[in-house]
């Protein structure tokens, strides 16, 4: 039926629903090591209340979280730990790098500090600040939401295009054999 009508009402509604759910239920894994972790605590406490965005379920288990929130300096000793945590997270997963130290090493151009966590893991959103204000972090999270929706749309379109191409190819092949 899908092939007959193209985009059916059912699938698009379901996709919208899916987008809505994905957008509003980021469960963060707070990889907090330093000053930024204190600001993260402020973000989840009552003045800023991260639960307004569906992210109050702070998970300390990588298997159950969607967003790795790296808050604080990552040094060379912590690096392998961070990598392992990231590898353990289930797809789809995103990374927010909070604060100057996690993003780029900040003003610690030093012998024991990793110059940005993107040395070892991919980062989706960088939030500058040392540490960022809770508003800054929430802004970063909202940006991530938009990015996620954008990416989902793009992937779907790509999938459809590929599907269409396949159909075309099949029909061409079918024509050739005939």
């Amino acid at each position: 039926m899908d092939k007959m009508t193209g985009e059916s009402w059912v699938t698009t509604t379901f996709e919208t629903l899916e987008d809505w759910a994905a957008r509003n239920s980021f469960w963060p894994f707070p990889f907090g090591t330093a000053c930024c972790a204190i600001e993260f605590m402020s973000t989840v406490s009552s003045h800023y209340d991260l639960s307004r965005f569906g992210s109050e379920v702070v998970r300390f288990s990588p298997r159950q979280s969607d967003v790795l929130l790296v808050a604080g300096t990552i040094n060379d000793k912590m690096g392998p730990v961070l990598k392992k945590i990231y590898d353990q997270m289930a797809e789809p997963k995103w990374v927010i790098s909070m604060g100057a130290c996690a993003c780029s090493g900040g003003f610690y151009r030093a012998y024991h500090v990793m110059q940005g966590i993107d040395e070892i893991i991919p980062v989706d959103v960088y939030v500058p600040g040392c540490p960022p204000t809770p508003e800054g972090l929430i802004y970063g999270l909202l940006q991530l939401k938009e990015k996620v929706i954008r990416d989902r749309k793009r992937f779907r379109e790509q999938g459809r295009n590929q599907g269409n191409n396949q159909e075309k190819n099949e029909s061409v092949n079918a024509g050739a054999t005939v």
Partner: protein
Amino acid sequence: MSTLAPLSETPETATSTVQELEAVRARFPAGSILPQDGLDQPTWIVSRDVLAAVARELKDNPQTQFDLMLDLCGVDFPDREERFEAVYHLYSLHRGARLRLKVPLREDDAVIPSLIPVWKAANWFEREIYDMFGVRVEGHPNLSRILTHEAFQGHALRKDYDPARRWILTEDKIYKPHFDLPPGENEDDMFERMTVNIGPTHPAMHGTFRLMAVLDGETIVASDVEIGYLHRCFEKMSETHTWQHVIPYTDRLNYCSSFINNVGYCKTVEKLLGVEPPPKAVWARTILSEFSRIMDHCVCNGTTLVDAGGLTNFWYLFQPREEIYGLLESVCGARLTVSACRIGGLIQDLPPDFEARCRRLLEIIPPFVEDSEKLVNKNRIWIDRSVGIAAISGEEAVNWGWTGPCLRASGVGYDVRRAHPYDLYDTVDWEVPVLYGGDVYDRWRIRMLEIWQSLKIIRQLLDRGMPEGPHIVDDPHVALPSKEACYNEMEAMIYHFKLIMDGIRVPAGEIYNMVEGANGELGFYTISDGTGKPYRNHCRPPCFPIFSTFSRLIQGGSLSDAIVSLGGLNIVAGELER
């Protein structure tokens, strides 16, 4: 509040220790101890051969009683024949006296005897000097790297080490735990035991510590702690930046109360310079330090309860924090890492509504603290979880080098603000709370009592009124001239350029200066060689000796108690590992 120590009992002035020290010196062979005069505190240059005996004598002699080993750090002088210097800072609680021991060491023979038999506090400090300078310690039970990782090559604080040279840690190189097994246990029994690893990302370990515990059922037989997951090279960075630029770095030491770190560092440099900040700056520094202390205690007490499973308290205690953030932000423009001090004063003049805001805070904070006390103080669930847990007596705590609220919870009322008054603490009426339980419960309660004392100090200072005058010292060699002068006058403009291009010129010298941080004595041992950058800037972190005791504290307790006791110690990783 009947638990306050009667301070009137303690003598008012310090007993002079000069003669006693001379008497001790006379007992050792001539030439093995050379006094160095003219420094901020009595200093001896001690030959390595007699170091252990001298330390023992200084501690046990009833005339000196140097029972608190505050600090051990290394200094590197590449040009000297005796290249390294191990510097000990000692303190006598009975006399209020300080002593600095310097042990010169040759590079090819950089070995010091371990002082763990005298002061247990030496344990981690000796590992640190080994890690940072490659000075080997004879007789140390576990001489391994402590701040840097296992794959690190070289010794980072040597002058010839490139500050940006990094080493990659691979997974095959990991720290081998050293378990201090109790008598009666031996390594062969270990296969019957279970070893549990917690951290470093486990929330109970606050994200940056790693605990390895050998368990018998649920009881901890032995344990070891690994740190270094937040070593950010503060001391090396200090050596590569100008005196003013170190201030933002000090923010990130104890980030729960960054203002106190600013004050501690700026006071140290001001003393080296011989500059006195104006009364307005001193007044504001005292008030903001106390507000920062309240903030720090709120975080500590809030998170301790979270570790024990009580979340409500955390929300209540984070409310006053947000309000104090508002005040700090109105003074300097940042919430957490304030950088609000400058050498010689403050970043900017105080806002016009500073006093009004402070007064409003004095009304806002107490209800929340009261609520938190009502919730928890007499709550039997919390009492059962915390009374008698991780208990340590005053004597032992001093031996381990404790200072601050944790020491005061064990019955020793040492507070730098009282013992070595600085800023305006001597002019206000307040008390040092002391409790005698030495356990998690008393550490919790003493922080609450200190919040009330801090509020008392602030109230008195506000009643006194803001002093008139400038916010920063009027000395073009130290502080930037005002922008107005800078635009109008050629001379001010030249000073402005010169100060920024070259930095402050601090006269050569060395100093150890301390303030009461939120966790205890926060000291800075700073050496200047007369150039625009610190030659060596060592921070004496109050957490460091306290956390080195952790394995001893949790031994014999259950695993769940270990989690609660970590919260009660208020270990801040930024300060612990710098």
